[in-house]
């Protein structure tokens, strides 16, 4: 059934269709409608889940961890400062190998106080052991939530599904909402491998001495590596069932492309328009959409950029003292390989400043006009 819904409600519908059993959440702009709608689903009997109101995001994740330990399909949603407050517990979720799914609405960190979109909040959590998916449309948000449960429950690591504040969260788009029976056939009930239960008490998360700690971390990394292939498989299977396929990255008009834009989230949609426009003018411009950020899809990126001369990475984030985070990751992915395109590291749209088709045209023009990037960070549209 197609409905015109906001991105936040796409998350809610995805969680409902996934038959989540426990939801513990604390409201924060711009995530609030996600949990509002979920609480209504629970109250109206449209979702048979325990909705736990908590007093902070730290507790939201702690309760989600507890529920997941008890064998429930558990999820939550947050944004920005809420995510930052969860930081400690994010490690607990991943280190405990709990298949939790969390939606994070990208919002710039304060101060200055901001409610608008930017990726720094989620990217700052990249080393917590969580998978991260960045979504381009409301449809992709809903579809990714459903896939996320399946992937997480296969590899036993938690997953963050990321969407832009307002550009997606509060913007209405037509979304196909699949029927429950089909989702049920795609996503069977969660079977926990280990459970917290009074009748068979075990110690979880206890002291781990140096002679064992490293092996646990090794196993987590192996699971992350495995997750790349699992994501591709689940995305393909989803395509077979629902008619919409997904992969770790998406190549758009990349045949013979000499200049490749690398984007993620809703900037991708804007960039598609510009790429189409430039292609009609005969310019060899392509687009690489990054969907999966953790684990980083090294092979897919290397393969996609094999023919590119120049790569313009569009970062709506900043690692202070370093630069755009995607640019750094792309550079790292290409290091040691046979082919070394020039990487143009753009930073644009921080704090939710609009990234328009003209912004993307300007990025492409800059890349065309310069033989070398010239700077470690190419700041776009900064008043200076």
């Amino acid at each position, binding site marked *: 059934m197609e409905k015109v819904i906001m991105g936040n409600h796409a998350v809610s519908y995805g969680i409902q269709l996934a038959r989540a059993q426990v939801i513990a959440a604390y409201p924060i702009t711009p995530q609030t409608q996600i949990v509002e709608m979920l609480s209504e689903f629970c109250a109206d009997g449209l979702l048979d889940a325990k909705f736990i109101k908590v007093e902070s995001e730290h507790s939201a994740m702690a309760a989600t961890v507890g529920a997941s330990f008890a064998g429930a399909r558990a999820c939550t949603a947050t944004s920005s400062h809420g995510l930052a407050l969860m930081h400690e517990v994010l490690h607990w979720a991943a280190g405990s190998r709990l298949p939790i799914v969390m939606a994070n609405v990208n919002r710039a960190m304060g101060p200055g106080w901001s409610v608008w979109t930017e990726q720094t909040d989620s990217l700052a959590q990249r080393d917590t052991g969580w998978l991260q998916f960045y979504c381009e449309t409301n449809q992709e948000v809903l579809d990714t939530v459903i896939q996320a449960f399946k992937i997480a429950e296969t590899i036993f690591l938690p997953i963050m599904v990321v969407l832009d504040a307002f550009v997606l969260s509060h913007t209405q788009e037509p979304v196909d909402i699949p029927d429950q029976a089909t989702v049920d056939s795609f996503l069977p009930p969660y079977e926990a491998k*280990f459970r917290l239960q009074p009748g068979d*008490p*075990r*110690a*979880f998360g206890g002291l781990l001495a140096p002679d*064992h700690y490293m*092996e*646990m971390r090794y196993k987590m990394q192996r699971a992350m590596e495995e997750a790349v292939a699992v994501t591709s498989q689940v995305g393909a299977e989803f395509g077979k069932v629902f008619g919409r396929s997904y992969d770790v990255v998406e190549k758009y008009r990349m045949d013979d492309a000499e200049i490749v834009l690398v984007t993620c989230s809703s900037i991708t949609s804007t960039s598609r328009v510009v790429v189409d426009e430039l292609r009609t003018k005969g310019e060899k411009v392509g687009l690489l959409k990054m969907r999966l950020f953790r684990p980083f899809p090294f092979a897919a990126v290397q393969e996609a950029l094999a023919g590119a001369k120049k790569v313009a990475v569009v970062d709506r984030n900043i690692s202070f003292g370093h630069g755009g985070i995607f640019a750094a990751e792309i550079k790292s992915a290409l290091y040691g390989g046979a082919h070394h395109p020039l990487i143009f590291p753009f930073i644009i749209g921080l704090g939710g400043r609009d990234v328009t088709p003209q912004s993307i045209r300007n990025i492409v023009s800059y890349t065309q006009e310069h033989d070398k990037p010239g700077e470690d960070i190419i700041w776009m549209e900064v008043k200076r």
Partner: protein
Amino acid sequence: MSEKIVFKTEADMPLLPMSLDTTLYNKTGSWRYVRPIYRDKTPPCNQACPAGEDIVAYLRLVDKGEYEQARQRILEENPFPGVCGRVCGHPCESECNRAQLGGAIAIHAMERFLADLPLERKLLTPEPTAPAGAKVAVIGSGPAGLSCAYQLARRGYHVTVFEALPVAGGMMRVGIPSYRLPREVLDAEIAAIAALGVEIRTGMRLGENFSWEHLNAYGAVFLAVGQHRSRKLNVPGEDAQGVLPGLDFLRQVNLGQKVKVGPQVAVIGGGNTAMDAARSALRLGADVTVLYRRSRKEMPAISEEIEEAEQEGVRLEYLSAPVEILTARKKVTGLRCVRMRLGEPDESGRRRPEPIAGSEYTIEDVDTVIPALGQEADLSFLDKGVRTRGDMIVTNEAGTTSRQALFAGGDAATGFGTVAHAIGSGKRAALAIDKFLRGEALDDFPPLTEHVHAAPRDVDPTVVHFEDLNLAYFTEEERTPQPQRAVSERIKDFGEVNLGFAEKDALCEAERCFSCGTCNQCDTCWLYCPDVCILRVDHEGYEVNYDYCKGCGVCVEECPRDAISMEEELKWRK
């Protein structure tokens, strides 16, 4: 302790840091130095009830819809829930912790609701304890006498109650007007006691209709003759026609005798007799003024009675006392009064009224004066050798008098002046007589100001106060009012003023009860225990698994009603 497991490679290791075997071997209870113990404490209502009812217990049963069981809990202690649910001054409500969050639980209305249930009463009889053929005589069929007779009869004694008046019930019958206590309610409760085999012989005044020697045939005698004589005003004119002592007036009205009052009536006093007399006179068509020498705050009458009297049109004049009853041709014509002011507190704790010099004034056109300044016992019938102090029979805590096998209670021995106290006093005497006739020692009785229980109650005597509750669990909820007949209707006759609770009202009040100090299986402890060592037992309560309880105290802290105690290890008591 489990064996140490050695992992050769990461493949042998679990997915996450967890124990591969049960952790039950690790008895974390050994870390504990304090232990939580489920121990019900005393709710303030129970502590305050002179009849010794287990109020919280029956409110909990009402909450569960178990009305008959709830009524049984009352009947174990008190055979008069229909009377007490109507006329008791409910000291329980004055102490109720709920008062601070929406108003005290309407306990008296709950008691009445249970008493009025259209269900046949099954009076439980405990295991008979009476020695074969044991006979007890009770002198007086008021609340004390009948309470004693009831408790003894339940235990297998043959009890004969001697009543001086032509009807049974004592003050419940001749003191309390029917608009507060309909006769059929009283009749039914007395009949239920008689149905246990208690013989009630009316028109039998000790010393007139039968002798002290006659009582020798009984193993024990309980004197509960009450206080049926009004205290005198001690002002000139008191002997005039139109002066009608309060208790005499009420007795005549309540026995259905024709009484002429008014049209202008002055009632002197501020207690329940004054209110009853004033409202009865009003119903006989009089215009009524009550004169009280202190202020409203010091009035001993039940506050609802004062409010209802005022609503009905009784005028209350405070800080005024009569100095003379004005007469003409030996008939009352008016009152000479003096204005009072309140001085220092007296021995009762109330401020002593003092006349203001030169403030005398006259109230004209008074036809009837009803003094209601309190009452006293007529002890002229007493045999020599029974010790008295003032107008009261002297007893100890067990109710024994100075004479062997003679017990005394109720107002004539205690002077508390309420039905509930009299019921408690009669029960105390019954328990003492039972022990006495079985040859047991009569110690262990609490002071007369405390109550006794007929049914054993295993609770900590510590009273739970408002600050002992966990207020995070309670919100303000309004007290449910009891419906009443409209003022304009009820002053026309002696029909009952209060109409009682509907079932929904009773359920609402039962739900409001905090269940202070009394576990009601709310599961809070069970939910909060971080070590999963609180276990539910047959939906009747909980047990702590001390093998694993670390003594963290979360259950004690979280318990909404202070029903769990923390005791130091090695010092705790069951």
